[in-house]
């Protein structure tokens, strides 16, 4: 299977899923009115990837905003990764947040409390140029 790459828009995040490295990235804003439509290709892709995943998979999530319509879809993405981990692979979710954005940190902690995958909370440093 090939990578899945989508450019970010004002309402949907940049997506970069690479099956060869196991590096997955969701970055930007996830505030579409119909999140199901947007996330379906991602969920399908991870379904395909889960058949022969890398021994190590890392999902980077760096969201500035996400709406409650996206929150369930994001949970569905995490559940797919949970299944990959349950099959004996190493999976990590790296949840990035800005220094003044405690709400985003809390959102990551909320997911970490629901999903059985190790989360790393990563403070976005200005020096990283992100």
């Amino acid at each position: 299977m090939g990578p899945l790459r989508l450019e970010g828009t004002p309402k949907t995040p940049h997506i970069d899923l690479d099956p060869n490295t196991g590096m997955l990235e969701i970055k930007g804003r996830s505030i579409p009115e119909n999140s199901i439509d947007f996330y379906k290709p991602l969920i399908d892709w991870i379904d395909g990837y889960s058949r022969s995943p890398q021994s190590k998979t890392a999902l980077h999530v760096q969201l500035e905003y996400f709406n409650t319509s996206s929150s369930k879809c994001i949970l569905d993405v995490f559940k797919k990764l949970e299944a990959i981990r349950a099959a004996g692979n190493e999976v990590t979710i790296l949840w990035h947040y800005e220094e003044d954005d405690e709400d985003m940190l809390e959102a990551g902690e909320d997911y970490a409390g629901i999903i059985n995958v190790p989360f790393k909370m990563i403070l976005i440093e200005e020096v990283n140029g992100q």
Partner: protein
Amino acid sequence: MIIRAPFSLLHLCSKEYFRLGMIDRIHDLYDELERQRIMLSFKGSLTTELITALLGMVEHKMELIEPDGRSRKRVFNVVMECLQNLYHHKTVIGQGEGSMDPDPHGVVMIAHLDNGYSVLSGNLMAGGDVERLKQHLDRINALNSEELRDLYKTTLADGRYGTRGGGGLGMIDIARKSGAKLEYGFVPIDKDSAFFSLNVNVTS
């Protein structure tokens, strides 16, 4: 003639009065928006494009007036959820049966207050849904911030909410971002519908 002349005059006068009245009302409306410190106001039927444009305006204005990043994000989040509530609600009613307006209008306003922001929204809704929404809002208002967080997590995890993320996750999120109690009201319109008003305070 005796009857028609005064009638015409009256008609003309009332028409003239009405015209002047409308002109005065524009200024009255403007004054009222100023008095209430409304920084953005929208009334009408929403499309996804309009929501994008309105959110762009909110973001731009907030960057100009609010130095605190957390407050900026919270206001943006609350406005976004309110607009998307209106948008999805419109769709639900539009697909329904009965005498409801197939394209009902909602209203969203943001007021800049001394101690923060007030996000006001309103829309027509089916009268039969009022009690359920009221119970949901009362349940949310009875919780402290930690309990609210737990309710958000359990609601998210149980997956029982609808395809658009409905089922009340939106209101829970709005309450979390607000940090204050949700102020709401229902005005009965007729036996089938009511007007729902919501005021969300975001302190800065």
